[in-house]
């Protein structure tokens, strides 16, 4: 059953927020923006007028993106937004919360500077996969607008293909299965404590890693690239902040979002993600512990968390909560308070860091010559002040570290570990720690 309620004609179209999106509006703030962004470095300078035209054309095929967030009496919802869409020149601290008033209420923002295009999304609108689909369509449309010949080659939604109802569905409800699986207990992990910046914004460091060399490393450990990176990330947290320190809680938990479309199918452009968690208590650390051993543990934990029965349980629990009669009839202001409280107990507080891997990007051959680099970044928050976004493109893996504090010890360990193992790494930074 589709939960999307769409009415067109005299009345504007509107959509219920999907199950996962419901938590984002009440818990979002300046210091917890719930935003992520995709950027592409293209071969020529961006023309803002063409970019705007491309956004308008792309939006016509992504109706759930052409919306604004509205407050109902019991729930937030998305309503068709007829205001003109704008493109903005990228500011130095662009990975902050979206100024919705300035952005004509759209929940995504298109930015450009020189030869770089960035699209920033509020998580209530979509997840990484949905956002990246939109981003790819926007890039393809932009190249069409500036006069390039583009063939989507089945890798991107065809530019003229109309939107379908499936793309706007709440897949959590569509693919929900009842589950009696036992709930796993999650312990509160260590949280990184660093010196916060004296000003707004976050530190961003992107490591462009040779994919083949990294794959060799992960293969030698017998694990996937994601498991290997998660293990190295966890080990970097330990070595940078916990090793030889008198800290009682040395449990490091890496949250790894997983795209459920691969498991359940569906083509929704909205949120359809669940999480695997790699937790390791470094109080049990032995000196012979290696990244390879950690990666094995991580792979096991990920496989366990991503078992269909466990995913069914998590989806079922979330949908049950949403469908609970008492919750349904609770007025929105009260619900917001409850959600904020619940999020502070069972939200980001249960993770040390977050590693989100979009996977290998396949772009049509007709546009790859114009796209040099693609990156994915997640805004850090006050309760999860270090995050990593990973995306693969053109034999490179782009690992973007975002942090809300000055120190770069974690990045140093992570990158030096790779280079000491013969992996070629090229680094870019916004040098936020040395801002005047």
């Amino acid at each position, binding site marked *: 059953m589709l939960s999307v309620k769409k009415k067109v004609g005299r009345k504007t179209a509107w959509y219920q927020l999907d199950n996962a999106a419901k938590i984002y509006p009440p818990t979002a703030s300046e210091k917890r923006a719930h935003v992520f962004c995709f*950027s592409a470095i293209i071969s020529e300078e961006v023309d803002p007028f063409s970019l705007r035209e491309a956004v308008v054309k792309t939006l016509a095929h992504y109706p759930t993106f052409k919306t604004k967030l509205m407050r*109902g009496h019991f729930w937030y*919802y998305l309503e068709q937004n007829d205001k003109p869409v704008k493109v903005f020149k990228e500011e130095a601290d662009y990975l902050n919360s979206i100024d919705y008033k300035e952005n004509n209420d759209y929940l995504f923002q298109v930015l450009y500077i020189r030869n770089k295009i960035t699209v920033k999304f509020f998580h209530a609108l979509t997840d990484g996969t949905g956002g990246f689909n939109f981003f790819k369509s926007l890039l393809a449309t932009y190249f069409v607008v500036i006069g390039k010949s583009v063939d989507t080659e089945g890798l991107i939604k065809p530019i003229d293909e109309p939107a379908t109802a499936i793309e706007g569905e709440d897949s959590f409800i569509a693919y929900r299965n009842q589950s009696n699986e036992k709930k796993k207990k999650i312990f509160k992990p260590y949280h990184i404590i660093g010196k916060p910046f004296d000003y707004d914004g976050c530190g961003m*460091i992107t490591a462009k890693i040779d994919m083949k060399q990294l794959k060799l490393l992960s293969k030698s450990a017998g694990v996937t690239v994601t498991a290997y990176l998660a293990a190295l990330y966890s080990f970097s947290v330990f070595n940078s902040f916990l090793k030889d320190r008198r800290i009682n809680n040395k449990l490091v938990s890496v949250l790894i979002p997983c795209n459920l479309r691969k498991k359940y199918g569906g083509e929704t452009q909205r949120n359809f993600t669940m999480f695997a968690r790699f937790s390791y208590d470094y109080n049990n650390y032995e000196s012979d512990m290696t990244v390879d051993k950690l990666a094995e543990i991580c792979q096991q934990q990920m496989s366990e968390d991503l078992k269909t029965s466990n995913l069914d349980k998590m989806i079922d629990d979330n949908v049950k909560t949403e469908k609970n009669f008492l919750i349904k009839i609770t007025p929105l202001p009260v619900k917001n308070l409850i959600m904020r409280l619940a999020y502070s107990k069972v939200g980001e507080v249960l993770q040390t860091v977050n590693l989100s891997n979009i996977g290998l990007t396949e772009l049509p051959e007709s546009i790859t010559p114009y796209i040099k680099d693609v990156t994915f970044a997640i805004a850090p928050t006050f309760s999860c002040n270090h995050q990593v976004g990973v995306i693969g493109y053109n034999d490179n893996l782009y690992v973007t570290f975002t942090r809300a504090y000055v120190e770069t010890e974690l990045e140093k360990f992570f990158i*030096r570990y790779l280079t000491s193992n013969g992996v070629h790494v*090229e680094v*870019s*930074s*916004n040098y936020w720690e*040395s801002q005047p």
Partner: protein
Amino acid sequence: MKKCRYCKIDVDTDKNFCPICFNRLDNVDETSASIYTLRKRNESRIKNSSFLLKLFLFITVVSMLACVIVNVIVTPQVSWAPVVIFGELYIWVLVKHTIFSHRSVFKKVFLQVLLIILVLVFAERLSISDWLIPYVYPSFALAVVAALTTVLLVSPKRSEFVFGFTIIVILMTIVSSVFLIFKFTERYKLLNFLNVAISLATVFGYVLFGFDSIKYELSKKWHL
């Protein structure tokens, strides 16, 4: 492209030091097309604390306390301080919620109606006047009904407003009914009766002529 000999990495930057270890970089190639364009942070985003808001809040709280103290010491037989406090709170809501906000018309009107009802009941209970419930409230309610109906008749956005206005009129009907049923006043009841009758007729009219809009707004705002 530059090189950091300590981290063994290539660094794409105009700066002279490594972003990871902050050691000096070796120049290899001057050409650079970094993912991050280095600029100064945008000063305009650094927000000043809302000094004026805090100042007004301070003045409000101090004046409230002063009123209570003066009332208790000088005229303990007449409790007028609550009226001043309520008035000040009302001004805060009026300014913050109604004048300087982007809330919907429904929310602004609904809260104002609710507050004015509270003010009247509060003043009546304090025995400031005994004609607020029998005369002022129903007259106010009838005026609101007339104003809302006029807006619905002339506004091109009437389909957006009708649901919210129906709720407001229902609220005012309920309040008049409560006054009558629980005998808030033994005096002149006709205006409250009149308000109940006219408001019910108005609600019926709104529902009859705006059924589709109300149904649509209900499904949207209540997810029915």
